[in-house]
């Protein structure tokens, strides 16, 4: 089955070569980071997590987002998703691999990473995050591959796979809940210390994950004979738009609590992210344009996705999904983690800017994810087309 990934058009190989080039450049930057230390990044004593951990957090959401295809198909027997469920499972695999790479890239002592297993510490949410992320990776590898292989053989998947499929459904919820708990259980970090963080993570994940999947599926449609199906597309639009709207509703709830209560420490980070924070005569607002854009882009995306569905326009559908994805990426892949460190425990502000090395390594991890998705989707689409044509 894997041989399907080795036969492709010129465009396919060009794409692979581009991804490998980005990975190679990022690899060189990582060597630099390895030798010099994490000091090559823009992180500091005050902003001690940066782009790596924020990407990790966002991508856990993308992985969990695959649930929105798996759940309707397996739990509600929604047949229309039969053709794309495998894409959800394979996207989860790529996203989790990226998550693990970002964690390793962020560790000061990556060679000691296995200490998390050697000295298991159940009180630490990071320990549980390791458990659920690796478990979810294994579940999706097992389910995705077993199901596709049976399709390849032209038979129904074996019964032993079923318990794993059902297990993967609550497990998907758990990965993003535990990731939210990394943040939501820290006293003194008021932006993160909110009970709605996990629900908000899930809402944005259930929009961002399927949105990315739909974009990729539309690209595949343009280049192959694979078809998602209009009914499945319409259903995905419903899922994405509801999840995105719920995410913005949760954001509004956060704003209400902070600004109606006038509770100072609940307002500081939101000021910093969305309006600019004034401290001793200086205005700190380096993330304001992004965060404001995130809200505007998100609202436009939601409006446009309904219009795209009514017009049955794939182009508009793709653009609106891209807007929603971008909006959620800025919100969670940028502002959520970075904002939590402002102001610092002394009430002071340090603004963070990623370094070239950091950006290069981040791009390389994303490229690795795209490479994994490309290879897995190539196999999946080839198998499906072979059986159908």
């Amino acid at each position, binding site marked *: 089955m894997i041989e399907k990934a080795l036969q492709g058009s010129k465009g396919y190989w060009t794409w692979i070569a581009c991804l490998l080039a980005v990975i190679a450049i990022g690899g060189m930057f990582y060597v630099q980071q390895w030798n010099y*230390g994490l000091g090559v990044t823009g992180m500091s*004593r005050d902003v001690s997590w940066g782009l790596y951990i924020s990407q990790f957090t966002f991508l856990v959401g993308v992985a969990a987002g695959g649930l929105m295809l798996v759940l309707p198909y397996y739990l509600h027997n929604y047949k229309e998703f039969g053709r794309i469920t495998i894409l959800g499972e394979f996207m989860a695999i790529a996203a989790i691999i990226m998550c693990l790479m970002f964690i390793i890239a962020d560790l*000061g002592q990556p060679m000691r990473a296995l*200490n998390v297993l050697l*000295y298991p510490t*159940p*009180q*630490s949410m990071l320990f549980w995050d390791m458990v659920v992320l690796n478990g979810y990776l294994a579940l999706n590898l097992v389910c995705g591959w077993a199901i596709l292989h049976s399709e390849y053989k032209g038979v129904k998947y074996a019964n032993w796979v079923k318990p794993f499929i059902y*297990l993967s459904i609550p497990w998907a919820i758990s990965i993003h809940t535990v990731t939210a708990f990394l943040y939501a259980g820290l006293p*003194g970090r008021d932006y993160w210390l909110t009970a709605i963080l996990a629900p908000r993570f899930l809402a944005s994940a259930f929009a961002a994950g399927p949105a990315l999947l739909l974009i990729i599926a539309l690209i595949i449609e343009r280049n192959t004979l694979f078809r998602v199906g209009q009914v499945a597309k319409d259903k995905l639009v419903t899922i994405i738009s509801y999840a995105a709207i719920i995410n913005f509703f949760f954001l509004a709830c956060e704003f209400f609590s902070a600004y109606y209560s006038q509770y100072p420490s609940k307002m500081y980070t939101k000021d910093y992210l969305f309006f600019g924070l004034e401290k001793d005569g200086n205005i700190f607002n380096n993330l304001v344009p992004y965060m404001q854009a995130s809200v505007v882009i998100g609202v436009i995306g939601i409006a446009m996705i309904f219009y795209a569905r009514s017009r049955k326009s794939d182009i508009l559908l793709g653009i609106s999904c891209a807007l929603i994805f971008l909006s959620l990426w800025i919100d969670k892949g940028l502002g959520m983690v970075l904002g939590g460190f402002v102001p610092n425990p002394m009430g002071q502000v340090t603004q963070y800017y990623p370094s070239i090395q950091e950006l290069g390594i981040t791009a390389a991890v994303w490229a690795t994810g795209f490479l994994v998705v490309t290879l897995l989707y190539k196999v999946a689409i080839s198998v499906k087309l072979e059986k159908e044509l």
Partner: protein
Amino acid sequence: MKKDRRDFLKLAGCAAVAGVGSSTAFHSLLRGEAEAAGLKRAGTKKDKSGTRLGMVIDIQKFIDNRDLAQRCIRVCHQIHNVPDFGNPKDEIKWLWTDRFEHVFVKDTHYRQAQHLQGMPVLSLCNHCDNPPCVRACPTKATFKKDDGVVGMDYHRCIGCRFCMAACPYGARSFNWRDPRGMDEHGRSFISEINPEYPARTMGVVEKCNFCTERLAVGKIPACVEEAAAAEAMFFGDLNDPDSEVSRVLREKFTIQRRPSLGTYPSVFYII
């Protein structure tokens, strides 16, 4: 009929998985280390038995002795091989001074006593009785000792910096680069290595350890020793009613940093 049975089995399966998973997780949370970190007793009365080392810092004495704080910092950083990178981004500090209004963050306090504004106040790890950093650490590289000191194992730390996010006092520093290296002018970051205490490698977190290595040989923390003549710092067992710190805490009005967070800091300040 057949469909009903399938639906039921699905539901039962999910419920079983969720039930087993959550109860196992819950029980392991309640066992062993969870107790040490204070999870189990959160919200209950703090345990008064056993040793709980703590410190009292008299801010007025530091006003009277202007260079005392810097002397304390110097001796601390010297004996613990704390590097000086010469820039705030890479900065590592165990003991440091910050302005009064930063150490005791004021959100709305209006017309606070003039002499307190901008006054340098010594800050360090609070060796909390209920430390969020210990809860966060995924490898027990930071842990609470029987005497109440929050310690660090630099050889186990993986450098995830979860503890830095968890600490509400900014007491933790990360080795963003090799502390045993030197800058482009050939100046070593550690001017003179003290062989009595380990220097760190890059990529690990460090912080004040209440001079646990000195306590082990019957000495008091170096900063307290430096401040002894001025009677500016007091150290001892908070749970022992006859200790010097207990006496000072009984007699003077003291405050803690951010007490509302439930961390139970073991460092107190006389204003």
